[in-house]
């Protein structure tokens, strides 16, 4: 049976398929979760300023020396509602150590946000409305919720698309607070 022998072309095809499959398997192993990684090198934070929900002024440039957690949220986003208590908690616990938590409220109405804040009992956040969403786009926000950690020198040292966890905040924020 001479034709049983695998021709070179076919063997090449087979090898190629196996190679692609190996890469696919590696991709599968990584899983889609790895898109939610942290940012690489710290980059200077884009500008963030405006009138807060309660009528005050906020400017990130004036918050140098403070560690700022910027959380992009909206009342129409379910997961945001779930993580608000956690953010409120760290804001209250760590504000004496120089932490400020800013809620960038993406494309939302003031009534809706107020309702959300009072429902979740959130009081510790500086809420900055972003009705047309351009501030968020300046920050490269991909979706809500998304959270950024800005260090005392005004650089973004960590970002997390999706819901934050206590561990993540502990890992990224506490070392910055201690450094002061």
């Amino acid at each position, binding site marked *: 049976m001479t034709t049983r022998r695998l021709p070179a072309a076919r063997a090449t095809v087979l090898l190629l398929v196996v190679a692609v499959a190996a890469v696919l398997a590696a991709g599968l192993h990584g899983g889609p979760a790895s898109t939610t990684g942290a940012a690489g090198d710290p980059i200077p934070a884009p500008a963030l300023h405006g009138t807060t929900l309660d009528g005050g002024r906020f400017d990130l440039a004036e918050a140098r020396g403070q560690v700022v957690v910027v959380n992009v949220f909206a009342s129409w986003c379910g997961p945001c509602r779930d993580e608000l208590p956690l953010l409120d908690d760290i804001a209250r616990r760590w504000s004496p150590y120089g932490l400020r938590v800013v809620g960038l409220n*993406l494309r939302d109405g003031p009534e809706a946000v107020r309702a959300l804040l*009072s429902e979740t009992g959130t*009081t510790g956040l500086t809420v900055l409305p972003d009705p047309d969403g*351009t501030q968020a786009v300046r*920050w490269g926000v991909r979706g*809500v919720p998304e959270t950024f950690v800005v260090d005392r020198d005004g650089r973004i040292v960590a970002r997390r698309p999706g819901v934050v966890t206590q561990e993540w905040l502990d890992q990224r924020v506490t070392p910055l607070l201690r450094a002061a």
Partner: protein
Amino acid sequence: MSWRRLLGVLAVAALLAGAGTGLLRSSAPDPDTDPVRTIAAGLRCPACQGESVADSQSPIAAAMRQAVADQLARGRSPAEIRRWFVERYGDEVLADPPARGLPLLLWAVPALALLGAGAAAVRTLRPPRRRASAAAAVGSAPAGVAARRVWWLSCAAVVALVAAVAVVAGRLEDAQPQAPPADPVAVTLQLARELEQQQRYDAAAELYRDALRELPDDGVQLRLAFALLRAGDAAGAERTAREVLTRSPDSPDGLLVLGLAQRSTRPEEAPQTLRRFLTVAPRHPAAEEISRLVDG
């Protein structure tokens, strides 16, 4: 040349000219189109699957459209705006990522497929040379003992296939324990909360009791107490809150419900309980309301 012939040529020429003009007109950019839309169509919505910023209805895409419009109004060029977005979102924000490095694969693979299939097609169309022998080679069926051996081998292969699936499945199960996506207690609690929002407190309390049987938890018990209170069962609320308070005497919510319940069961004790609540949790969202209630 006959008149008819000339007419035919003229007609074809007119058609060709018309079609050519039409094509030219279409390949030039349309002056009427909205420049924001043109730029947004070249950007990919980061929150969606495969939709452009121009088409997507996600709020982020709407915000990105607004950003494009703002920058156009400030007189920036489309190229500058695209660069601005790439700085923030990376190369993949562009609908057509630049073809260098790995994205080259996107063009190389179809090109190779075209070449390979084309070569195969040409080979098929060429007169057959020395390939007629191929047919004679097939049809080599094993017979007798050999066939039996092949059959036993196949038996082993089928068993091996099933065993392989079993082994891999077992290992995967260990590797990623499948948490039930819908925690039954969570579903119950969700339903109960919905009922509360619809002000059907009796039914909600019933569901909270169900949930408590599965998951003894102070938080759930306090929700039950709140639901009972709102349903008008102050005695039940008081009892439930006390159960929590025996375990953790300083629970602010426990004190709050107890105090509110006592206002109807034993009004003389209520202010004291509520004051204790205020000392334990002065910054509770309900604190302001309660202090007004106690002092007023």
